[in-house]
């Protein structure tokens, strides 16, 4: 698939500069709005780094949707469950690396159990039934995780430094404040995406996965074991959920609300498309940055706590312009 690079080099910087100029213009008219380019960039960077976290959750959705056309609503509760399990295991005195590996094992077991108990009996059912089943899994995992490990807010500390740092101190007055934790989280996210890309492109399992994603029937007919593939995909999604859980959990504590961050990742999917991994990443960054900028610069005008819905509205507006999403091909319908 030929990727046209040029638009990607031009559009994002142009959009950022345009947005900055617009806000600068507003601040010139209305003194209520505080704007300097340094502050703008600071917010933008913080938002983008936050967006990496959204990308991670969206990635879990995309993996499963690509391989099985299932819209896995339980991704959020998988994040919570993984984080709870890891905290629980660390509470038993395990080092965090060991706890991480053990939890990864638990997630694989969970994936196999889901494949066995839910997906296999529901094979060939309409998509909406499978979607409902994943909402069932969502409730079950939420209850299960909290029954096992309790529902109080827990700290998850794996030693990521949290001290903020300043960059570009010469260019901008006071420099730009960047949260070190967010940078590390972004790096981890990037590494995870790179590993997944290699896994999908270079390994035999990866090729089988792509075949399944293209056409279930055809994949079955050439001897690809669909059920194994599904178990693997759900395991991978489980491990992605674990990484997400560790990152989010150490940022804001492990608690019930972690399960709801999945909802924040959904607009990312509208933007990027349900089947596109690059879409999930870029979509996450856009949503993260857009949301942060809106919260900081616009909340004086339309009220606070707009991050509950802003991402959705952003995605909807985007849909009006480009219904097939960022990376979607224009669909030719056949009759």
């Amino acid at each position, binding site marked *: 698939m030929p990727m046209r690079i040029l638009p990607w080099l031009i559009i994002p910087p142009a959009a950022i500069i345009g947005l900055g100029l617009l806000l600068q213009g507003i601040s010139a008219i209305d003194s209520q709005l505080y704007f300097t380019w340094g502050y703008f960039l600071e917010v933008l960077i913080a938002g983008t780094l936050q967006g990496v976290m959204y990308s991670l959750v969206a990635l879990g959705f995309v993996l499963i949707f690509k391989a099985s056309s299932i819209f896995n609503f339980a991704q959020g509760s998988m994040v919570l469950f993984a984080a709870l399990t890891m905290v629980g295991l660390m509470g038993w005195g395990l080092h965090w690396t060991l706890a991480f590996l053990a939890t990864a094992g638990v997630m694989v077991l969970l994936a196999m159990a889901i494949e066995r108990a839910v997906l296999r009996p529901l094979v060939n059912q309409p998509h909406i*039934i499978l979607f*409902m089943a994943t909402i069932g899994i969502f409730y079950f995992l939420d209850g299960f995780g909290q029954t096992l490990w309790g529902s109080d807010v827990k700290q998850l500390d794996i030693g990521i430094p949290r001290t903020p740092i300043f960059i570009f101190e010469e260019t901008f007055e006071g420099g730009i404040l960047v949260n070190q934790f967010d940078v590390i989280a972004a790096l981890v996210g990037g590494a995870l995406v790179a590993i997944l890309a290699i896994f999908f492109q270079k390994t035999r399992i990866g090729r089988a996965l792509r075949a399944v994603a293209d056409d279930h029937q055809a994949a079955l007919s050439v001897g690809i074991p669909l059920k194994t593939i599904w178990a693997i995909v759900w395991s991978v999604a489980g491990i992605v959920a674990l990484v997400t859980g560790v990152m989010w959990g150490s940022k804001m504590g492990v608690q019930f609300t972690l399960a709801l961050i999945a909802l924040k990742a959904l*607009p990312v999917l509208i933007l990027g498309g349900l089947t596109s991994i690059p879409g999930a990443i870029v979509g996450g960054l856009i949503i993260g940055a857009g949301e942060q900028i809106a919260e900081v610069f616009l909340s004086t005008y339309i*009220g606070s706590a707009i991050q509950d819905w802003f991402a959705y509205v952003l995605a*909807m507006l985007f849909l009006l312009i480009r219904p097939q999403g960022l990376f979607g091909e224009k669909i030719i319908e056949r009759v």
Partner: protein
Amino acid sequence: MFYREAGQYKSDYASDQAIFPIRQDRIGVLLIFLFALLVIPFIATNYLLNSILVPFLVFSIAAIGLNILTGYCGQVSLGTGGFMACGAFFTFKLTTWMPEVNILLIFLMAGFGTALVGIAFGIPSLRIKGFYLAIATLAAQFFLIWMFTQNPWWTNYNPAGVITAPPRALFGNFYITGIEATPVNKYLFLLCFTAALALVAKNLVRSALGRAWMAIRDMDIAAEIIGIRPMAAKLSAFAVSSFFIGISGAAWAFMYTASVEALAFEVTRSFQVLFMIIIGGLGSILGSFLGAAFIVLLPIALSNLPAMVGLRLPVDLIAHLEFMIFGALIVFFLIVEPNGLARLWQIGKEKLRRWPFPY
């Protein structure tokens, strides 16, 4: 034996197109309705009325509404909670603004208002299909709830952000909202109201509009080629569905809980109603009732079960266990009967027709 249609010949199209073409069904439904209307008010306890029958009826309206959109027109929506909130807050604003207008009229006006909101959100989101639409409806959900929590205007500047149902009578002294309203009054009103709304829904789905919705659901391209405008059909389903859901939200706030904040209509409410129609049966008015009954009764059964067995469990553990069992039951149910309770009922009826013969 008794459930036979032999000998019942239809001699015109009108009787062939009736809602219950079989005489036994007609009699059965009439008996159930009369029992609910004339007997239950005298024998039911306040607990049964307030905690089971009233929410059952309220949810039935919502389930019928969502079933029109999802079951009949094939568009998945996760915005039910938001639209219920619309109905509740519109009713509150309208009835505090115009106290002299009859509450029934206010409910209907709130329903129409919600339908307009539904159309407003439907226009951009109906360009997309399937799960993308489901996600887009979440935008309505979050935006509406945010709007009702953020703007104190909606609650008439109540410091707690709560709306409380003022006393309103349907006629004379027959109060159906507020503290003067007895559970029996509320129940009787809701029973008749729900029955009327269900009849309206049934009439719509067996007329031209309903066939257009189902055509869009089953194959949108073919529907367009026989002359259905997909956008118009989907929007009308969105509007009618929102009308029902808005009314159910109003009934929820004014008759079930009596005072409510916007957060009562969070996204979990949307899932709840979606579960009802899936478990009850997509594309079935009867299924909407069955699903509502199931979802209302299940948590009550779950929370009473440990006490009945003699177990004493901490409250939060019970809550978590409820979540688990609820989730597991949903999955179990989908595996056993993906077409819902309405389908089970149909199979049962077929069996009954043949009984006592096996074939």
